[in-house]
């Protein structure tokens, strides 16, 4: 599943990131395979989602979060 599907604040590990022209940008901001990610808050009406990655809070739109694949627990 992807980070866009997260509903609670359980911690997951990033397995991979879909290749797109946002890939490099995401990696630069610290989104990398192997990092721990959890959901902090969702904005209403399918708005952006705020995640905690490596101690940082990162806001991503749903379509951006959908690029992050999580390791199956």
């Amino acid at each position, binding site marked *: 599943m992807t980070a866009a599907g997260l509903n609670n604040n359980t911690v997951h590990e990033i397995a991979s990131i879909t*290749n797109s022209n946002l890939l490099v940008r995401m990696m*630069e901001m610290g989104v990398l395979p192997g990092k721990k990610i959890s959901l902090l808050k969702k904005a209403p009406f399918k708005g952006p989602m705020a995640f*905690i990655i490596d101690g940082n809070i*990162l*806001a991503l739109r749903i379509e951006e979060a959908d690029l992050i694949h999580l390791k199956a627990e």
Partner: protein
Amino acid sequence: MEIAEKLGTRRIAIIGNPNVGKSSIFNQLTGLNQKIGNYPGMTVDKMVGYFNKGEQRFELIDLPGTYSLLPKSEDEVIAHKVLNGQGEEKPDAALVILDACNLERSLLLGTQVMDLGIPIAFVINMKDLAEERGLQIKTFALYQALGVPLVMTDARNNQGIDTVKSLFIEDKFVVGKPFHELDFPELLGVVQEKFGFSQPYQAFQQLIFASFDPTLSEEKRIWLEERAKAFHFDPQEQQTKETTDRYQKIKELLSKSVLSGTNEPRKFHGKLDAIFLHPVWGYLTFFGIMLLIFQAIFAWAEAPMYFIDSTFASLSSWVVETLPPGVFTDLLAEGIITGIGGVVIFIPQIALLFGFLAFLEDTGYFSRVVFLMDRIMRPFGLHGKSVVPLISGMACAIPGIMASRNISNSKERLITILVTPWMSCSARLPVYVILIGLTVPDEAWMGINFQAIALLVMYLFGTVFTLLGAFALKFIIKTKEKSFLMTDLPIYRMPRLQTVFLTMFNKSKIFVFEAGKVILAISIVLWVLASYGPSGRMEAVEAEKIAMLENATDSEKEEIMHVYASKELESSYIGILGKSIEPAIRPLGYDWKIGIALLTSFAAREVFVATVATIYSVGEEVEDELTIRQKLEKQVHADTGEKVFDRATGFSLMVFYALAMQCMSTVAVVYRETKSWKWPVLQTIFMTIIAYLGALATYQIFS
């Protein structure tokens, strides 16, 4: 000789991730000794600051915050040009600011700068936060691994700044050994030679920047693209590879020199975010904070604005009294001084707005607002970050338009810039107040005054058009750029007042000098048009006035002066212009007198008040809205005997002022932000057409 070598300026570039405290450090090193310039062909400001130690002068270039040197926006292009000496003078050294809590991420940029072959030093900032999280950074191990001097600082609490200064003074900058290994040795060698680079990584960067640098010559660009194709060098692929490889190496390095703690955001901040990001409370607190800010701006700006107004008025009178009468004196007193006064009077409001915006941004709150508003802004072709320009447009569009810089997508930024002036700014307020007083009954409905409702309607009207305009532009303006959000929500911090004041000061300075030039020029033009008329006419009126005054009693004299001030305006160029556009504005319910007010208001909306006072012979000193309103109420059309300012005309005029571009300062700032006259001109023309149609429709509906 050593002493001779030390003189001259040492130039050092400062670079780091956003939110790492770079500006804090820059401000502490340079204070008020800052200068804003520009990079030719780019919208980003060139921030430069100075400090001296004895005979030695240090020039610090504050590069825009960025996560890496790989191109994504103008910010990286500038970092690339400055650090590689391409079109910009190459600095003697670079200072890279790293985040103690995010060493991995900030070293991506750090090692990239290292590989450019320029002498560098690292500053690890926010060490206080690292300590709280239980992070232990073994600086000596890190120093050995990187081979570059490191200084730990806590810029907000003034720790370590002196050590940073000594880095400069003792010139401790060192060229690090190359960090990342590169492939494509022949390709890089060829590019190195063509561009005169000393390091292969510089060549690598140049290949990647080939399609991004707007100032690169066409010939060079094609050359780079052909070489890349020949060697099967795919820039996109290479960037991904470089980033992945670098991180790999950085991780290994850090595993030996950093012991991690809990690495979680503070609990207190979690509580703040629970409110600020809450689906209900988040929006409510945002609304409340905005109300407070607007309240403060209106309250605090009032006294200084009044002071500035009377000072310039006195200065003007003093000039008229002291200097010999003549064209030059009049030009000075009424054209230049009034024009400059027109710029300076903006300053209290704009400075306060800049100050509050800087304060909120420094706390980290704005990124939360962007988070809340992004979903709402997107259907209109706007970005979450557009909310700041739009909201500040309710006080004044100018700081808002300047703030739209941080929207990286050029289409979203352009749309934001183009529609912000439709938000009801504070200059429209005097116009609304007078016209509502004339046309809306002062009665209450269910406990709320009709007039207050009318004012609210005007504000909503502006907002609706802003969004509609953005929506329309979404389909008209094309771009291939992808829109994205992806931002950091930084730790909440108490803003440093020094930073806030410096930002306030610098931005206001930009406004005064840039918009100021345009406003002054147009003020003088308008003054000429209003003071001079085709030969004979104005002199004839003047002669008539003198004749009338001779036969008048003292009590009649003032009335005569006012009536003739109006007649003189009528026979000036602008009066004639007003008369000539009368046929065009009749369908809107206006006569030539209102026509003159429309023309002069092109300079600034609140000029409506002063112009109307003159045309309807109220007398220039009286800007009392009540007096003006009483005079306007009595105005009747010469031919029909009906009221000039009836409901239809009043509403139509309000709609016109809501929609038209009547602010030279805004035009000047839009020019500055879009780097061409195309957009401000198109914007003005378009807004005026919409205003005309809107006012026309309003008049026809209500009459």
